């Protein structure tokens, strides 16, 4: 087994295993921390796919930002007592059925589609680093989406502040 293969299997198992924990554990905090493991191992998979910039972005934004937000949410909305997650049995069986069928379908598609796999060394042979290429595409081909995304971020920021702000105001009034 080559190093690459070994590392792939390691991170793939980590990703899937921790993701299973995310959806099955009964403790929200455990779920959040397993999600951290999932996100980090996905970042490692990105590195293996030569997307190093993306991997760093994933860790900075997902782990350092979104996950911290989620954890804050968890800690603010649940006391120590109702940390337990309820899973409705009524939904468990249809849910897993749908999931399994979908998974089988997807894997069948994955292995039967004739993928147009290119020469895999193309990216590695170019002199540009991925960071440079990404930078150039952001300010070139993807300038419009980039600007739209920044507007969306701004809107989300203001919206989030507004939603949580409402409650503060009412406290002041009362």
């Amino acid at each position: 087994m080559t190093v690459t293969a070994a590392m792939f299997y390691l991170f793939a198992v980590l990703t899937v295993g921790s993701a299973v924990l995310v959806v099955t554990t009964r403790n929200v905090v455990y779920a959040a921390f397993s999600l951290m493991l999932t996100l980090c191992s996905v970042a490692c998979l990105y590195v293996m796919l030569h997307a190093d910039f993306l991997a760093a972005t994933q860790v900075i934004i997902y782990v350092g930002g979104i996950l911290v937000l989620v954890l804050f949410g968890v800690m603010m909305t649940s006391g120590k007592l109702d940390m337990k997650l309820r899973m409705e049995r009524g939904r468990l069986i249809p849910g897993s059925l749908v999931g399994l069928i979908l998974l089988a379908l997807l894997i069948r598609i994955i292995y039967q589609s004739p993928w147009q796999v290119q020469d895999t060394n193309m990216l590695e042979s170019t002199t540009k680093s991925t960071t440079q290429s990404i930078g150039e595409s952001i300010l070139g081909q993807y300038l419009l989406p980039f600007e739209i995304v920044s507007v969306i971020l701004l809107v989300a920021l203001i919206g989030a502040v507004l939603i949580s702000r409402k409650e503060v105001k009412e406290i002041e009034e009362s």
Partner: protein
Amino acid sequence: MELLSSLIFMLVIAAALLGFVMLLALILVLAERKVSAYMQDRVGPRRVGPFGSLQTIADAIKLLLKEDIISLQADRKLFILAPYLVFVSSFAVFAAIPFGRNLIASDINIGILYIMAISSVVVLGIIMAGWASNSKWALLGAMRSAAQMVSYEIPLALSILSVIMLVGSLRMQDIVGAQSGGLFSAQNRWILLDNPFTFLAFFIYFISALSEVNRTPFDLPEAESELVAGFHTEYSGMRFALFFLAEYANMFAVSAIAVTLFLGGWSGILPGYTFLNGVPGFVIKVSVLVFVIMWLRWTLPRLRVDQLMSVCWKYLIPIAFFNLIGVGVWILIFD
């Protein structure tokens, strides 16, 4: 076979780094105690070994031999995991710090980005520790810490960005190479002195870094007079030692990054003085910054949590933004 050999290679590098970090922490703890002692009109440790040089080793042994207390109400799994998470993520930063021309564990081409990514994981470890302790003091400390570190990452990133703009690379060795001229030369001098905006960026970086490593005046997460000991209130012995180790490793790491980004890294201080090239010069520069951090700790009081936030959001972030624009304009006009 290939797998095995590369695995061994990686392990050797990691072990060497780990040994280095351990040694570093021991030296830094002793240095901190001596520095604080002389600032406070005392002499500090001097019983164990010559001039107390073995004091921290004695302390480390004491910590290792202490009873490992896990409170009954704590969440055992996360409680045990948290110190390792904090330590590993602050330890992993060292992989991308260039100590000398070839002395870097891994000169990846997104070096500085990697450092920022890895160090943001520390927050999660701290939240984990605070939550798992099941103590209100620890939880308060962890919440404060998370809010503080997430906020101060913004000015930190913005000040780093101005360096990246100037150098045009995220690779640590490229950044060092861009300042190979030393302190005063016309070309390739230290980024600190490159233009007024980078000069300011250094201070923005330094202030934010102080906050990132929870040092006074931003040591609220472990403010001992308010929160007992913050997120590691419930920890003792070995696990506490790991937090402690991580704190000092972090202190060195942010100073080393500051040196690499702004003060020429391992490249020489003055042309001609070749003995200051490489590791010795790097160590001298980092030591100066570490000393300044200690100096601040033993001089300044601590900010309140809301003031801390307003410093970040009302002053540092806007200044950092305009500073970044300034760097851009400077590059456009002069380079």
